[in-house]
């Protein structure tokens, strides 16, 4: 079958699509990393949490609110929800095995998915995001304002988070609680609240990612499921405990698989996931802690 030949315009557009795709992975991967750093747990409910909060935004906007007036409300709800989940579901099993906590997050994912179907139905919904759907001309290549907005938002979020962790007392306490809970208690940090705070921030990050991507892929209860898989991959790629790694990993992954899927005919759309896996596996064999992660030194 004749497949369109290579053109630079298309390449630029594919690249833009890849970066935008990657920015979304990055957003969710960042949320995963925040929770992993503090609790050493992978949160399987991260995607459904993001979708759930996006549905709340949709409902608010359906009741006449503008995006920007709904936005802070949704973030507040997401934050409270994240903290509440940690307090109610994770806290009681804090000392149980990682497996137990992972299963609870899985249960939460199923529960939220079911609730979304019950409350909002399985239909696809249109979600009016903050960005115009116009395209602008960037050096002869039409690029959508939405795509640019998504990438800029993601990067801004990362920068904001970095500033928070670097320069605020709370951010410092969260980092301390993650790396050394025992000593943190001795200097007066309420460690278990820091973990809850981590869940809250992760939920906020997820909510933002959800509200950014929903205008592109349309909103339904399963919106984030595939994206979550890629976010896992992005987080592993970057190193599970590195926020910077999550972002770099996300964008790298988005670009790589978009370009591989387009230009390597054998991979196409079907083998994108396996190709991503293989890439990561190879990387992990070389660097067992991911691109930016710390490797616990084990001499065996």
């Amino acid at each position, binding site marked *: 079958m004749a497949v369109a030949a290579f053109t630079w315009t298309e390449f630029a557009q594919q690249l833009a699509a890849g970066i935008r795709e990657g920015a979304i992975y990055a957003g969710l991967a960042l949320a995963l990393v925040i929770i992993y750093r503090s609790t050493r747990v992978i949160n399987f409910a991260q995607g459904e949490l993001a979708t759930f909060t996006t549905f709340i935004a949709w409902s608010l906007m359906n009741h006449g609110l503008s995006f920007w007036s709904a936005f802070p409300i949704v973030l507040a709800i997401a934050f409270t929800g994240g903290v509440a989940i940690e307090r109610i579901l994770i806290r009681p099993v804090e000392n149980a095995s990682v497996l137990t906590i992972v299963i609870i997050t899985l249960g939460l994912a199923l529960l939220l998915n079911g609730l979304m179907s*019950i409350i909002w139905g399985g239909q696809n919904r249109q979600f009016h995001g903050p960005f115009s759907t116009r395209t602008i001309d960037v050096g002869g290549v039409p690029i959508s304002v939405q795509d640019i907005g998504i990438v800029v938002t993601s990067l801004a979020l990362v920068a904001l988070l970095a500033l928070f962790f670097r320069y605020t007392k709370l951010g410092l306490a969260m980092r301390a609680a993650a790396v050394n809970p025992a000593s943190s208690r001795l200097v007066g940090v309420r460690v278990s609240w820091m973990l809850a705070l981590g869940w809250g921030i992760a939920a906020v990050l997820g909510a933002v990612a959800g509200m950014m991507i929903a205008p592109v892929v349309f909103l339904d209860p399963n919106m984030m499921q595939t994206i979550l898989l890629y976010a896992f991959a992005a987080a592993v790629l970057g190193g599970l405990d590195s926020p910077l790694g999550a972002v770099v990993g996300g964008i790298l992954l988005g670009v790589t698989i978009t370009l591989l899927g387009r230009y390597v005919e054998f991979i196409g759309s079907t083998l994108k996931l396996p190709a991503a896996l293989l890439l990561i596996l190879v990387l992990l064999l070389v660097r067992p802690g991911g691109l930016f992660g710390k490797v616990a030194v084990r001499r065996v």
Partner: protein
Amino acid sequence: MKLKLVLEILGFVALAVLVAVMPSFVSDFHSREFAIVGMYFIALLGLGVLTGYSGQISLGHGAFMAIGGYTTAILSVDGISGHPVRDIWTIPIAGVVAGLAGLLVGVPALRLSGLYLALITFGIAVSFPQLPKKFGGFLGGTSGQILNLVKAPFGLDLTPNDWIYYLTWGIALVLLAVAWWLLRGPTGRALQAIRDSEVAAASSGINLAFYKTLAFGISAFYAGVAGALYAMASAYVNPDTFPIILSIYLVVGLAVGGLGSLAGLIAGAALIYFLQNHADTVARWVNHLPAVDLNPKQPGISSAIFGAVLILVMLLLPTGAGGLLRKVFRPLTTRLYTRS
């Protein structure tokens, strides 16, 4: 320790007797349901060896089941150079093929630890269903392969459901005995030493690479056998027969069954089957509560119930059914040991 051994053997015999007489007390269809529980039990035994005893978490065992299932499908439909293989003989082959795949995965797994390994194996579970789509000519594509319906061989007068039941549980009991025998011997001690501390295990002369890879291989063999049986019982395989969520359900079954407890895994297997196929029944139970009126047919209700049950089970029994069993029986056994 003699007493513990006697208790375990008695438990095994009781289980075997229960398995043998069960079909006389339940309907033909229920035999099939118990058979499928048995298949999950076999896969969980394998996962138990890996996670419970060597400490490596795998979120990809659905893929090994799929390899077993596809092996059985290909051998019993296309056969070897045009000669279809009778379905029951494909079972050990399916186990071996899956086991080899497990060894293959076990090698890179040596370099990965904890959640990295979990996520990479999850990646395998996610990726595997894509392969039949890509290599449709050999593996049947999305429309999959249709197998022959199971029938009792050797002129046995059994319904297909009873036959698959006895076949599954016969194999399950043998594999349970094998796992038990393996784990109480030097292999089990080596694996547990590795789980508890790799450094300590290595310094006491245990070959880490050998035992960890071996655990992956054994574990995948079990999953492959389970997948082969599942393919036979479904008489159909396609990429959705072994969905991504299956791998997750298996880990759920393991956690519910309790790490490091082989018998508790039956409870885990039953839960996997029950919640997948009988969420409507659970909804009816829940409706007995005041002010609750769930319609099990409403989309979403079954997922919500499944999720809620999982959370509750893990909150109430963070160590799983096996942990509960141990908690209940420890006072008893401790007393017995101290007296003897």
